[in-house]
């Protein structure tokens, strides 16, 4: 479904990624792990169109993503959340989710200006859907609160709700469990599995929480200094000597 081939990108002479290849198949939960600075978030930024690589190919369901602008990639069904949440801080929670719904809404400015019945119905339906999503993520009671004033855990769930509002086929989650307590992490794991099992999503996640990674991933790839040093099922990865070396060597294990 998502295919990354021979991807290389460097910033100021430093190779952030060199010759990385990944193949994520439909309805898979695929985890990217590795020490800080290994290039995990860079992969996300290339796939979502924020960075242009110096070499390589990225295709998603047959489309060449490197030829598309970020908003076009989003419209083709690639959603994401950020390591440091990037909610629209001065918008209410429900407005954040409605912005996430943007690509599915049709009405333009002119039709909206005349308040046509179809426009109003579309808006009402979008609001209903947004409220259901907020409720699903336990955010119903903060729907009308400004996103920037919510605690971090809430903002992370809100970002997820916003991403889901776009009904993506592929969802990239950047450290979804970062800053969450063990109970919240458990809830998150169940949610991720349900998204795959019930909504048929494909998930690519970057995560440091090994319990989450080992607990729900179908496959794991390990990055170190922009290179893939291992890939396989969670238990194969846990036993791989190269992985153990990378983590111990950098002194910043997970």
């Amino acid at each position: 479904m998502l295919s990354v081939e021979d991807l290389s990108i460097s910033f100021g002479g430093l190779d952030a990624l060199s010759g990385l290849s990944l193949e994520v198949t439909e309805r898979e939960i695929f985890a990217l792990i590795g020490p800080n600075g290994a290039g995990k978030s860079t992969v996300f930024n290339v796939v979502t169109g924020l960075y242009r690589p110096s070499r390589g190919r990225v295709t998603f369901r047959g489309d060449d993503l490197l030829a598309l602008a970020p908003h076009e990639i989003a419209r083709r069904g690639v959603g994401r959340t950020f390591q440091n949440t990037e909610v629209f801080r001065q918008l209410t929670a429900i407005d954040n989710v409605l912005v996430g719904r943007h690509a599915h809404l049709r009405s333009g400015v002119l039709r909206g200006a005349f308040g046509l019945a179809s426009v109003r119905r579309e808006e009402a339906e979008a609001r209903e859907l947004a409220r259901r999503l907020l409720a699903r993520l336990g955010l119903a009671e903060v729907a009308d609160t400004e996103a920037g004033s919510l605690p971090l855990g809430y903002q992370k769930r809100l970002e997820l709700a916003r991403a889901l509002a776009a009904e993506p086929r592929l969802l990239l989650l950047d450290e979804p469990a970062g800053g969450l307590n063990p109970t919240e992490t458990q809830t998150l794991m169940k949610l991720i599995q349900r998204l795959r099992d019930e909504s048929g999503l494909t998930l690519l996640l970057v995560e440091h929480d090994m319990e989450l990674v080992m607990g729900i991933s179908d496959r794991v790839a390990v990055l170190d200094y922009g290179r893939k040093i291992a890939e396989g099922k969670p238990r194969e990865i846990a036993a791989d000597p190269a992985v153990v070396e990378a983590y111990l060597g950098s002194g910043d294990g997970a």
Partner: protein
Amino acid sequence: MTTAALVHVVVSGLATGSIYALMAISLVIIYNATRTLNFAQGEILMVSTFVGWTAMQVLRAPLVVVLIVAVAAAAGLGWALERLVIRHAISATHFDVLIITLGLSLMLRSAAGLVWTHDEFPFPSLFGNRPLAIGPVRLAPVSLGIIGASLALMLALYALFRWTRMGRAMRAVAQNQRAARLMGISVERVYSGSWVLAAVVGAVAGVLIAPVVFLSSKMGLVAINGFTAAVLGGFGSMPGAVVGGMLLGVLENLAPLYLPSSIKHSVPFLVMITILLVRPSGLLGRVARRKV
């Protein structure tokens, strides 16, 4: 001074203030989306009002049609300026773009002078001119009409930003362009939309104010008061733009009653400077937060 006279002065101040508020709003619309100050805003207002007026001269069109023609002209002009000029400077600094808009304003003013001369022309009002008497208070219909029409437009804008897809996209882009792109929003279309919307608001303000200040190539200078109003309210804030505009209009009209008339035009700036010293982010502006 009698209460009746005071009410009269305040109401005409609110009318002038409504125009300042509309100008401030149109500047804020573009600023929020693109972080650019559009110094050509006043000239877009002037040119579109002139185009509407020309339709009246040539086609003997009624005033409602004049308004529609002016709005359409503004939409076209706003779109063209953004698409053909500003868009190409997308990687320039905000300061560069600001100077470009300054250049555009001068060019539009000269062009208007060539087409319509630099004379002043009377412009008919959408509203009658028989004073409205409420007890001892006599109010000019022009003032009430301007206030009413401006408030209606402000409410429509509020609804647009609050409850429509495009309005939400504009607010999202104002706050976080990167995240907005990843939500499938074309930031470029939001830029276009902002210029068109701002120009349209300006055209309405132009048709409303032209009967009072006369139609001329200099009428775009009203944008300066729009800037002051926007700064007064806290640049970037829509409610601030409205409050700033109204306050400015009323002060400007009240000042000559108590102070030498030559000071009239300095009063708004004195007030602005005083307020900015006390509240650097303006009346309703957000306290600047550093992005981390």
